């Protein structure tokens, strides 16, 4: 393994992929722990798929599809947060509409784009080995902003997520926290599309958290364990993706699921010993 690594390390693409793996693990660890604790997994899935509309528009007008996706996801996130407090469309059906509407817009624009859409598979299934410098900058910027945000507002984020009404009676800045977190989630989803693909990126924010919740019931520890588990999955998946030439999304998620079962086994034996 060692010689493979030192061999690969010479290559730009590999160093980029390693950096991306690290940033993806950190950003998904934080955002994912939030969405899992708050049971916003379905909303987050909706955001990701809605962002495909932006990818299509990016192709059509010839700018970086990730930017289009970011715009779509952020607007959807703000819309969901705004609407959830005001209108009483049953929330899950509204999100399902958004989900499929974004996909439809994306498909329409991809097909309207003259010629064929290069790299479309990369957005659908992930391709961590081909991330561009620009993609890394987006992910790096997001990760830094999110870390700073969590350092400053960790307790407010935690308390607002736990009991929003109580937080309002304490006059905590609940709206500010909710909107900011929605934007951060949307951007985390989108900037990690290059890692796992639209179809699987949600698992990057949920499987590590499920693994972590086997071992802890504390938000902070859950986030840290998720980062570690996520990194193991992404790094391992990257190696598989390279050696077998398969999309990184699939190999990463496959590994994470195996990791999950290993974690279950470990906890089973730990508990058996203890009890």
């Amino acid at each position, binding site marked *: 393994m060692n010689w493979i690594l030192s061999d690969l390390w010479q290559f730009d693409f590999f160093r980029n992929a390693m950096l991306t793996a690290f940033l993806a693990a950190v950003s998904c660890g934080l955002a994912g*722990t939030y969405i899992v*604790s708050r*049971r916003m997994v379905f909303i987050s899935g909706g955001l990701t798929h809605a962002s495909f509309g932006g990818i299509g528009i990016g192709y059509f007008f010839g700018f970086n599809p990730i930017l289009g996706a970011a715009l779509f996801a952020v607007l959807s996130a703000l819309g969901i947060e705004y609407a959830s407090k005001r209108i*009483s469309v049953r929330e899950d059906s509204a999100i399902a509409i958004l989900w499929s509407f974004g996909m439809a817009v994306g498909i329409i624009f991809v097909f309207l784009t003259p010629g064929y859409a290069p790299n479309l598979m990369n957005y659908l299934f992930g391709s961590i080995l081909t991330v561009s410098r620009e993609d890394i900058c987006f992910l790096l910027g997001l990760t830094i902003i999110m870390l700073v945000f969590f*350092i*400053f*507002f*960790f*307790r*407010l984020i*935690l*308390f607002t*997520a*736990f*009991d929003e*009404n*109580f*937080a*309002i*009676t*304490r*006059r*905590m*800045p609940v709206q500010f926290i909710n909107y900011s977190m929605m934007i951060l989630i949307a951007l985390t989803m989108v900037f990690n599309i290059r890692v796992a693909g639209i179809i699987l990126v949600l698992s990057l924010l949920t499987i590590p958290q499920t693994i972590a*919740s086997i071992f*802890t*019931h*504390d*938000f902070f520890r*859950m986030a840290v364990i998720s980062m570690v588990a996520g990194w193991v999955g992404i790094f391992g998946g990257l190696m598989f993706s390279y050696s077998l030439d398969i999309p990184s999304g699939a190999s990463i998620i496959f590994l994470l699921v195996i990791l999950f079962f290993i974690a279950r086994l470990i906890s089973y034996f730990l508990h058996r010993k203890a009890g």
Partner: protein
Amino acid sequence: MADKLIEMRSVYAGYGNAVILRDVDLDIYSDDFIGVIGPNGGGKTTLIKTILGLIKPRKGKVSYMFDRDRHAIGYLPQLHKFDPRFPIKVCEVVLSGLYDNRLRPSIYRRKDRMKAMELLESMNIQDLAKMPIGELSGGQMQRTFLCRAIISDPILLILDEPNTYVDNKFEHDLYDRLKDLNKRMAILLVSHDIGTISYYIKSIACVNHKVHYHGSGKITQDQLAAYDCPIQIITHGAVPHTVLKTHQDELDTE
């Protein structure tokens, strides 16, 4: 003379198209201990949420006669559709009662942690401090939420049916504690069981879409009927037994 804390004038409140509370006038003073009673669905929780500012009145006005930046309103919600698997520890739930609109460090201050532990100790649940909130029993949760409500030394404490899912002993402990707290803060206690709380409260508000304020802690079945407040007085222990009557207008309501 006690200070007036809150003044509600001609308040209408509700959800969507439904108006739940109509034309509510209510004053709360700093030494009050008000029992809020009324039938299920009568709007007790809605009244509380309006006082807390969780619901904006449709019409009318809720005025606060104190500086809300300096004095808190403590709130113990009706038990409570929070997610029992949410990853948060008991002591953190209590500490959350200290945070407000000011920016505070994410690391708890020592004196805050001490205060939280003292409160947990006074409720005899200090051993649970590190437990996830979801693993507590109903009574332990209510204790935790009471700690959270009073850690900020509120000027007014509002409790929404704190006696659900708790045993009798805890209920009486709780009311004794409230009586003690009432020396320092006004208390608004929602209960559907007026028999038990009548020993502790100083006045009564009957909520059945309208609010009738009754300036003493005792109320008879006839008065309840006059207020159009169809609840039954159930008494406990060595209290003179009130014979329940079914009023004609009780059957007519709704």
